[in-house]
């Protein structure tokens, strides 16, 4: 049963990744202006070099052959070359991915700590002030575009991962607050309270264990949200991560780079949700 869930998750991950990258390749191939290359305007290039650039562009124009060639190269560990940056995509990803992953980790850590702290405070104290503070903070943050927060954080010279953390926080707070609220209203919890069980006992013996599988699932979703949020933050904050790279690739219609970034981002996002879903099922099975 467990291996079936994992295999289904891996199959889904592969199918989504292949479809996503193919869609990216099709999109870029049929985008207006694909056949032209800015490098051809460079007066320093010889006729032979310009011809070579045209041939390279022409070879990439045939999407099925480009894509099949790409998949074959991928199996060999070759991710191709970036047209706009004139560097191997693998080395670009190697340089940029750790920056994004580090910021992603710090942002998630901040979001989960503050989000859970707010949710626990509002549910444990049940004070109107705590609930209003939690709702107010999450309401304002959920209404703030990532780009706007990035501008403010650059202006005040705050680290950008804190902005990413604040943008993920509302989802964590709201979901956790609802989970805890539902947990406290379950019949056996009400019974335990009626029998005089202590606040912490109820929380850690009944409410938290019931909410744990959902939190594990939310962890995967929060990784996916964080990846999306990092893109405008890195682009505006001039952070050399894969978000900034994706933005540069999209602006310069750099097909090999964009396809690989699509794959990387989709892989991270789907792998995180697949892993967390598997962990959630495992927890639910153990609880049963």
């Amino acid at each position: 049963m467990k291996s079936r869930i994992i295999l289904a998750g891996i199959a889904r991950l592969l199918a989504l990744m292949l479809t996503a990258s193919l869609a990216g390749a099709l999109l870029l191939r049929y985008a207006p202006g694909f056949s032209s290359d800015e490098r051809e305007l460079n007066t320093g290039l010889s006729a032979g070099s310009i011809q070579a650039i045209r041939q390279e562009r022409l070879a990439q124009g045939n999407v099925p052959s480009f894509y099949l060639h790409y998949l074959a190269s991928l199996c060999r560990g070759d991710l191709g070359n970036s047209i706009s940056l004139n560097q191997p995509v693998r080395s670009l990803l190697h340089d940029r991915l750790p920056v994004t992953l580090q910021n992603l980790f710090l942002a998630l850590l901040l979001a989960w700590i503050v989000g859970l702290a707010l949710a626990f405070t509002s549910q444990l104290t049940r004070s109107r002030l705590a609930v209003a503070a939690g709702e107010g903070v999450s309401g304002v943050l959920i209404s703030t575009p990532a780009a706007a927060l990035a501008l403010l954080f650059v202006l005040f010279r705050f680290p950008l991962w804190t902005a990413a953390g604040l943008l993920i926080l509302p989802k964590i707070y709201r979901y956790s607050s609802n989970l805890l609220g539902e947990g406290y209203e379950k019949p056996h919890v009400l019974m335990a309270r009626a029998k005089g069980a202590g606040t912490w006992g109820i929380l850690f013996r009944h409410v938290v264990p019931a909410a744990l599988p959902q939190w594990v699932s939310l962890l995967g979703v929060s990784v996916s949200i964080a990846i999306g949020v990092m893109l405008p933050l890195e682009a505006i904050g001039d952070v050399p991560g894969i978000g900034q790279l994706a933005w540069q690739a999209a602006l310069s219609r750099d097909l090999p780079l964009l396809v690989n970034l699509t794959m990387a981002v989709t892989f991270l996002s789907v792998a995180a949700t697949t892993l967390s879903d598997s962990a959630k099922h495992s927890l639910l099975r153990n609880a049963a």
Partner: protein
Amino acid sequence: MKTLRIIAIVTLMAAAVAALGARYIAPGGYEHQFREATDAAPSAHHPLGTDELGRDRLARLLYGLRVSLGMAPLAALLTTVLAGLLGGIAGCFGGWVERSSMFLADLFLSIPWLFLLITVRAALPLNIAPESSAAITFLLLGLLGWAASARVVCAGAKNLMSSDFVWNARAAGFSGLKLVRLHLLPNLRGTLLAQFWISIPVFIIAEANLGALGLGVTEPLPSLGSLLKEMQEMVTLRPEPWRVAPIFVLIILVSSFQVLLNKQEVRA
């Protein structure tokens, strides 16, 4: 909460009136250059000052508000129609139709939303007429934002298809369009309305992000996103507090939608 909702409604109405009456509030228009007062500080003539080209910042903010407030509901309508069609068909037919529709929705949802938007927007021409860029930006939002809503609609349609009254209707000979028109659509109306309301603030935020990255509405037409892009040089040059007005307007506007949204969701 009731007071908060009243404040949100008043705020949205004030924003709509200000956007519609931009011509009267700031008669100069969004592209008129006051060449004698470039990069001016706030004054009686220009309450938010002027930009480097001498254009009135208040006028640009009001016209930007008009673009975002006017186009986001249209994009939300498009996305709701798409979600209704795809989710509704998937929920009604089930089987491979549902599986393939939901796989498509999964695909859209697995690629982070902004990444998807940036990629698709960049694949289209960037140097185009401002009006076309506004239309393309919001059209893209409408075309790409359906996936999450389609999942909700699909679940709703599936529930309805297995409900007693639909079984009775089918047994009584109702099928096809008649079943959809008389039983499914009226019962899905609440869900669709909720998805429409949810999409509006999402699209306003998405346009702001795209605009700030230079992939949204192009100059000289302002939008809330393109106003954020104009602010980027402030970060490296000099801090002038009145220039951050678009950020606060944006947050207040979207917050107002969020406050009203809870009510709409409850109704749905």
